[in-house]
């Protein structure tokens, strides 16, 4: 279980995340939503130790994450940020193999190879696993990186806007895979999402932020309604039910 307690981050004395406390339930998909500049990515970066928090703490199974050794932490929590620019030429398989680095430090064992195979298969990349990353489309590249995170085989998977620049088909594909990771492999996924409908359809819980503060935290169906969303986004968002999914129809809304 990840517990975020009173977490704050200041950039040049300006709070970007302010006194946020959330408990992440295991074996769920938790979506962080909110307007631009709400501090979602910053919060995710602090949980994953990419960024130091200024006040407050993050507890991973009751232990402060700052005290956990880097290598141990990498076996338990994986993070994937949005921009992944690398300036070396790698094949998909080589990239995915890096996911095993916390375990094998570059010397792959038979078990590592097996995990790499599984991760590649999970993301449907078997046919193109020997292709170089610079030959891939945005969606394929994103899948390769997610595949690396899967090979890392952590209990927690944190993703920062993984659907950025992806078309509808690939977005749905990736969200379905995340759902499978939670339902079949018992992972816990925390994801920053811009598209509120993906959050509504695929997540178990939603954490809504605004101006660095926590405004809503609860099961998806308690958050996806017009009143709660009004508070988060400052606009009227009609919600309709379609095949058991709640869909926000905000495209023509008046604020």
């Amino acid at each position, binding site marked *: 279980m990840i517990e975020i307690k009173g977490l704050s981050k200041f950039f040049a004395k300006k709070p970007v995340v302010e006194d946020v406390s959330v408990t992440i339930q295991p074996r769920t998909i938790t979506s962080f939503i909110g307007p631009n500049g709400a501090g979602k990515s910053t919060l995710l970066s602090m949980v994953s130790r990419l960024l130091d928090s200024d006040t407050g703490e993050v507890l991973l199974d009751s232990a402060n994450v700052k005290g956990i050794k880097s290598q141990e932490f990498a076996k338990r929590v994986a993070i994937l*940020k949005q921009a992944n620019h690398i300036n070396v030429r790698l094949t998909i398989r*080589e990239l995915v193999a890096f996911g095993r680095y916390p375990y094998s430090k570059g010397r792959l064992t038979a078990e590592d190879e097996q995990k790499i195979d599984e991760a590649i298969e999970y993301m449907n990349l078997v046919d193109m696993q020997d292709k170089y990353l610079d030959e891939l489309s945005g969606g394929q590249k994103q899948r390769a990186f997610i595949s690396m995170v899967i090979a890392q085989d952590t209990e927690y998977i944190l993703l920062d806007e993984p659907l950025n620049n992806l078309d509808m088909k690939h977005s749905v594909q990736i969200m379905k895979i995340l759902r499978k990771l939670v339902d079949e492999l018992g992972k816990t996924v925390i994801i920053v999402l811009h598209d509120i409908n993906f959050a509504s359809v695929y997540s178990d819980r939603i954490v809504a932020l605004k101006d660095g503060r926590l405004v809503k935290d609860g099961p998806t169906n308690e958050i996806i309604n017009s009143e709660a969303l009004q508070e988060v986004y400052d606009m009227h968002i009609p919600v309709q039910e379609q095949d058991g999914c709640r869909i926000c129809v905000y495209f023509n809304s008046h604020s």
Partner: protein
Amino acid sequence: MQSSVKRTNLIKIGILVVLAVLSIAGFLFYNIQGGFSYAFPKRVVRVLAMIITGVAIAYATVMFQTVTRNRILTPSVIGVDSMYEVVQTVIYFFLGSASIFVVSRYLNFGVSIIAMVLFALLLYRFLFRADKYPIYLLLLAGMVIGTLLGSFVTFLQVIIDPVEYLSLQNRLFASFTNVKTELLLIAAAILLVAFIWGALMMKDLDVMSLGRETAINLGVNYDKRVLHVLILSSILIATSTALVGPITFLGLIVANLSYQYLVTYKHSTLIIGASLISIIALVGGQFLVLHVFDLNTTISVIINFIGGLYFIYLLLKESRSAG
């Protein structure tokens, strides 16, 4: 497919080894006149000096370029080379060429290395905060301070005694001709320690070429490693500069040739490749200069000339691929 890439790289490295050995053998034995027992040991010392500096520069540059995520930088942007010029010029200016700091090569070597490494450490101490500032701030500050030091050196050189200036100039051009054997041993020992330290972080460097966030995600203590590499490359550059003079431009050439020649992300392979190319460039280059072209110019002039052309080519290529 993976193993075939590996095999081609092995062959490619084999070719480099053969070329390096040929260069060394050519340099050692070609046209050896007069007393073999007189000329041969001198040549051995020169070859060793070239191998040591060549490897040190290649090693430092490849690592440095990975942590700065930039392939057209050399560790000299930190200003370590300028510090060498400052030390030498100040010694000649205030103490004269007869001073113990010039006459005793040990003292000169020691003072130069210590000044350069201290300079780098001070810079890192105040400007290296990977979590707060981007690494470019450090590089920019190093460049500005380096320019400042350079201007200071020029100022002193303008008003220095012309006779002193001539002998100072000898110190400021890279030269392999009069390297003391004992210094070579000290330099080799420093490099050996540095290499062992470097070997421990080689695998982390592979991961670091994926970027800071991915590397941290994979359990690499990124910011600490960057600092380690900065310190390590300063030590390597300081040692080679104190031994033969400033020649860091070479690093840029050999590192990039190695990336182009051996398409891999593995630093162990890249560094071996860059080191071999470096040896070929220095020893083979010196051989050609001496025996084929029969020129008496220093190798550093030629390296700077060829290096400059290659640098322009790299810039053009980068801007084309960016645009």
